[in-house]
């Protein structure tokens, strides 16, 4: 099953002009557990999915209380770049959203 099908919320946004942050929230424990076990939701996995260098993925954070995941990465084109395609960074979640997490 794709991440976007299983998650209740999946969203991307700027955290400042140079960093993209992606939040994922699950409504069910099983979906969250599968996400936690998935190799995609690691710094290495995210880098591969987006096609960026691993060091530009600055963190993958977990919050069990709300079944939430936060992935942060340097923007490949920042909001400061004249050729940025998404000033707010609000629509850059799709490479992760279509990943299979079992």
């Amino acid at each position: 099953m794709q991440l976007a099908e299983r998650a209740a919320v999946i969203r991307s946004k700027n955290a400042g002009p140079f960093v993209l942050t992606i939040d994922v929230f699950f409504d069910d424990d099983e979906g969250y557990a599968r996400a936690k076990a998935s190799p995609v939701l690691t710094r290495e996995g995210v880098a591969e999915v987006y096609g960026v260098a691993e060091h530009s993925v600055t963190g993958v954070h977990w919050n069990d209380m709300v079944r939430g995941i936060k992935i942060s990465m340097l923007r490949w084109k920042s909001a400061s770049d004249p050729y940025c395609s998404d000033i707010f960074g609000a629509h850059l979640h799709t490479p992760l959203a279509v990943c299979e997490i079992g």
Partner: protein
Amino acid sequence: MSSSTGPRVRILSFVNHAAPGNGHEEAIERAFEWGVDVIVAQGTGSDWGPYWLGSGTQVAANQAANVRAYVRAAVEHDVPFIFSFGIAGADPHLDECLTQFDGLCKAEGWQLEVAVIRSELSKEYLREAVAAGARVTPVIDGVGLVAELGQAEIDATSHVVALIGPEPIMAALGKARNGVITGRALDIGLFMALPMMRGIPTAVAAHAGKLLECGGFALSPNDSSQPIWAEVTMDGFEVRGPNPNYQPTVRSMVGHTFYERSNPFIEENPGGVLDLTEATYTQTEQGVYCAGAKWIETPYQVMLEGARRVGFRAISVLGVRDSFLLGQVRAWSDNIENMIRTSDRFRDAVEGGTLTVQTRIYGLDGVLGELEPNKDVTGHEAAVILDVVAQDRRLAEEAAYFGFMRLFTSPYPGRKTTAGNAAAPFMPVVIPVSDVYEFSVQHLLPLADPITPFPMTVQAFPGWQSVQEEKPRCS
């Protein structure tokens, strides 16, 4: 849940650059039934990119109309308000908003006394700070920001603002009868000011600021056009939704601590780090009670933002519906980009860095660009946007016109549509967009004194006039 004795501050919050949503007037009344000590609304941010800061122009938000119902309530109930105005929040943006606000006060028949705090630092101040040895370093490495702010960047940047902390606001509260208006400010600082003045710990005040800063966005459903309310006490705070259709849940509260942050638990602020690793959120009868934040003191620094002009953008748009061309649309567009770059006419400008070109193809790679895994158009149509940024408008438009003509008329392999290659929807075919800016300053300025660089003046509304007060020098 909350302490029954001790200081208590009840805050009604909304976002002032968004038009208030349905039911906000009833919601304001409801909040005042619970009790309100201060109305706080932020309206600045870097989210809208460097354009506003660089150009000095203001987004077309009617901030006066947005605050009307809230200021009316504040005046009727004799409680202060604290607003940050102007998105980019430098002097011209603040002035524009204050002009509108002045008009609002006149139309409503109010006589207000407000402390105005400007966030823009003068170039003299920055030059002196740097010359005196202040090390002003980027907030983030590896993104092309200069390693240490120097005279060159200060000179090239049009406006530099600081995200002022709660301290200048605390110094201003109580000095003017109706409240405080600032330019660019740290969002949570606006909310921290009154609780801290009443003796509530910084950790609690900052945690409350974080949950309240985007108004109803922290409620369920998320909607920043709705208000939010909290009662802040020594140990924590209870959040409620004044509009019954927008209510806090544990998930909406914690979800908001994620919003626009790179780390969900740790956040650096002027003078300290807010640590929410052990924060607790408990559903109560009327809302959610939040506690458990920690504040770890660090040397005081404010974040600075500044933008500089990089050129002028002109675009041209073409629609492609023919499947044969769609099958080679990226190669076709890349070829035209190369024609522009290698032409006699533009080669020198390209090599000199005063002209850049890109084609964005919606229907193929407009959103993800080079990261798009799909290399072929899978639909039946695409839009090709030729995007030119050059040092001045004349050059940008000339290159865009040249590119349009090449896109529209040049032969490509196997072409059958020899009367014109694509659909041109607009005349003029070249659309001048705007000056283009980049963030030249996103740096941290150490401050021994968080108040003096940001003086307040008490102003009467209506009757306000923009007077350029002399800006503080760096002592």
